């Protein structure tokens, strides 16, 4: 027998469980956002610890701390955990907290699915981390899992494959939820071209995730059947081709790079106007640039494979297409600069991280253009130059964008102001140690140091030592961030509804912290 929904039923929603059950059964977008963010920060520390063991081994030439096999396991898992465990879930955390508040929706479209997509993550993370302790250890084939090397691995490889499957399911569910929310639950009057840039960034990202995650799942499944069920997808002896794996993998892998940066672009496009006290320059071109980047990024994958020996036509196509990505990316950088131009700028921590983002992202962008030139790339492929480049884009790009977003919205989320002095320390220490770690890696790569090696010739010794010192400084600095966040949750100056005087957007119409349920009656956008 069915009863019509009444207000009394609705009131029952308010009576949500507390304690552990609150989190296990969470369907509220704010709770789930919090879960995502804490989970991802935990994984960030786990992946970061691995990076520090790697840097400790590379502090001096010779083998001191870890043996080559474990070293390879650490580099592989550092990559997998940072990408799938830390960065992707962190952006989903931002999406959960912010998208409903920014579009004036009461919650995500599928709250229970939302719960499911989060709770898929811990088992996947446990599979990855515990694979160190099975016979043979974790996969040591690099995060790219190239066969035939990955076929040689022990059961740790299968655990990584299953973890990727689970994480992929979580990403796809999350993306469907985000797309549905954005397309169907915007407040009346909020047309697509009035949406905040962060929401746009996530809309494009979610479509890309749905496009490429199944491709990755296919690639690792083929790897699994090659390993155990006698197929020969990637085995030349059976008519397969190891290079085919690379094509399939990078068809996922390259868009993945933009999946990890587009929501960050969105955050930067929110923060800069707020602290310039000036509207975002060229909103329409920003949206078009984002869509163009999403589209072109699906057509450039083999620029990761210039050394496999592609025909001339293949090399040229992938070189030209890769160079083309620079155009819309450039537009975004120019627009941010133009937004700052003639503004009334102030430099609270979110703005520091946003400007820092532009600074380091432009450097990563320049090395990106250099790497797009096929002949130059062939010289730099699989060297520390590439390591420097993608850390400039990932750490300094995505991570600094997330820090900007975290400081920007933390007062809204917690109802308290964070400690501004400590925030500034966090920025400056991160910025200095980041560059100390990764800038010298350009020189190592140019001079000929391959990546993924546990020991190196003597001429690389001094820069490696500098990089290791920087890495430890950078790693320890991130504990300061944890302290700042906890301090902010526990107390601090009361935050007003509109935390930043230049901020615009629906989230600032809500009290800080926002009540558990918001926008039950949609606001109307003029």
């Amino acid at each position, binding site marked *: 027998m069915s009863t019509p929904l009444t207000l009394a039923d609705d009131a029952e929603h308010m009576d949500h469980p507390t304690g552990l059950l609150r989190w296990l059964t969470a369907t509220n977008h704010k709770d789930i956002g919090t879960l995502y963010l804490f989970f991802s920060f935990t994984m960030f520390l786990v992946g970061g610890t691995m990076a520090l063991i790697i840097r400790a081994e590379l502090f001096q030439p*010779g083998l001191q701390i870890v043996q080559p096999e474990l070293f390879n396991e650490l580099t592989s898992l550092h990559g997998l955990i940072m990408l799938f465990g830390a960065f992707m879930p962190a952006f989903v955390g931002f999406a959960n907290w912010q998208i409903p508040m920014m579009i004036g929706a009461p919650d995500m479209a599928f709250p229970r699915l939302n719960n499911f997509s989060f709770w898929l993550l811990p088992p996947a993370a446990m599979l990855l981390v515990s694979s160190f302790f099975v016979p043979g250890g974790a996969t040591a084939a690099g995060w790219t899992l190239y066969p035939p090397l990955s076929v040689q691995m022990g059961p740790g490889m299968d655990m990584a494959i299953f973890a990727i499957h689970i994480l992929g399911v979580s990403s796809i569910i999350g993306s469907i939820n985000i797309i549905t929310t954005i397309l169907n639950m915007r407040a009346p009057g909020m047309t697509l071209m009035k949406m905040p840039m962060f929401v746009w960034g996530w809309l494009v990202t979610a479509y890309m995730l749905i496009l490429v995650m199944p491709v990755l799942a296919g690639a690792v499944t083929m790897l699994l059947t090659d390993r155990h069920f006698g197929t020969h997808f990637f085995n030349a002896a059976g008519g397969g081709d190891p290079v085919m794996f690379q094509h399939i993998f990078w068809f996922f892998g390259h868009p993945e790079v933009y999946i990890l940066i587009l929501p960050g672009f969105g955050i930067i496009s929110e923060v800069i106007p707020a602290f310039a006290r000036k509207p975002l320059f060229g909103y329409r071109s920003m949206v078009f640039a984002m869509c163009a980047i999403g589209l072109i990024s699906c057509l450039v994958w083999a620029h990761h494979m210039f050394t496999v*020996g592609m025909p001339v036509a293949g090399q040229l196509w992938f070189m030209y297409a890769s160079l083309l990505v620079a155009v819309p990316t450039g537009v975004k950088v120019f627009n941010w600069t133009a937004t700052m131009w003639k503004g009334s*700028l102030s430099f609270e921590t979110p703005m520091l991280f946003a*400007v820092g983002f532009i600074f380091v992202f*432009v450097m990563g962008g320049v090395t990106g253009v250099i790497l797009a030139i096929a*002949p130059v790339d062939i010289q730099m492929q*699989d060297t520390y130059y590439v390591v420097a480049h993608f850390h400039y884009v990932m750490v300094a790009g995505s991570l600094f964008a997330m820090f900007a977003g975290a400081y920007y919205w933390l007062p809204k989320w917690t109802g308290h102001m964070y400690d501004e002095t400590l925030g500034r320390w966090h920025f400056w220490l991160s910025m200095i140690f980041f560059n100390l770690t990764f800038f010298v890696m350009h020189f190592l790569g140019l001079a000929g140091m391959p990546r993924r*090696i546990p020991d190196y010739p003597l001429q690389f010794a001094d820069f490696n030592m500098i990089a290791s010192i920087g890495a430890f400084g950078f790693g320890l600095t991130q504990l300061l961030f944890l302290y700042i966040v906890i301090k902010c949750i526990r107390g601090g100056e009361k935050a007003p509804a509109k935390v930043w005087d230049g901020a615009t957007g629906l989230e600032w119409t809500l009290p800080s912290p926002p009540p558990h349920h918001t926008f039950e009656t949609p606001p109307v956008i003029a």
Partner: protein
Amino acid sequence: MMTSDLAKLMMVASLALPGIAIANGEAKFGFQTPQTPVAHQIYDLHLIVLGIGVAIALVVFLFMFYAILRHRRSLGHQASQFSDNKALTIVWTAIPLLIVVGMAFPATRTVVAMKNTSSPDMTVKVTGYQWKWRYDYLGENVSFYSDLSTPRDQIENRAQKGENYLLEVDNPLVVPVGKKVRILVTANDVIHSWWVPAFGVKQDAIPGFVRDSWFEVDTPGIYRGQCAELCGKEHGFMPIVVEALPEEQYKTWLAEQRTKNKVVAAAASAAAEKTYTLDELKTEGEKVYGRNCVACHQANGQGVPGAFPALAHGPITTGPIAGHVDIVMNGSKKNPAMAAWKGQLSDIELAAVITYERNAFGNTMGDMVQPKEIAAAAK
């Protein structure tokens, strides 16, 4: 030669800027000194693109830092509220587009040059193994393996590290200068990558496929590189060393190799006929083990739990000898990390190492296998 002039211009321009020491020709901050026509092109190309990139970045930073310094609220600067400018947007879409198109032209020329492996003066087949290289001089009847020669003691910090630590091999690839050398690159087990930075050559070695590349060395010398594709445990320990000799010296070297090969072959076939004592096989086997097996199965035969099985009291080393011979010669179906050593080691080496493994690490089987039996098993 326009590219080269442009490159010099860029080099001067970027050297004038602080912190852009990258354009310096020293290997410390930039590419190693190029030694082949292709490497020269890559070197110049890099300087051009770097120069353009740095220039654009500086323009962006100039505007950004001007705004940061002047357009501050703390200076009382009022925000103007402009939010779009169609002309400006078109300009900064079109100009980068033209710049990348401009970059693509010289790059295309180099891509075509790198791929032009036609009419070589000589061809060497390069095969990657876990973890060494093999060179076959096609049509010359000269082939050999090239293995890391840095002693284990230096790697494990028990001895002072030498000048060419991790960049030295027992048998370097020897080529003549001024000749177009084509390399056919493939691999035996997993993907490796043959890379000599000074030559501008990096070619992945893909098992089951043959890819080619080429180089023509300008000046005699010894050039060093490393494997550039993660290929397992000893990936950091399989360097590439190329010795470029004047043509006359190269011919002498080639002739020496042929004689040496004949002597070695004669000795090997004589050795294969002989019957050995257990001690002779064990002594020889210990050396073979140290060169080929120790990286995985360890000096004490304990292996690495989970990854590489222990040989001490192992089911194969203390089981029937036929099974032991089979796995060493043909590799393991269960664990692809165990290579097939049939082609890589001679009959006497195989016989010796198998005998050694059955009578070392506390194994006391007391049995042995003769090279003749290995030859029979290979048939």
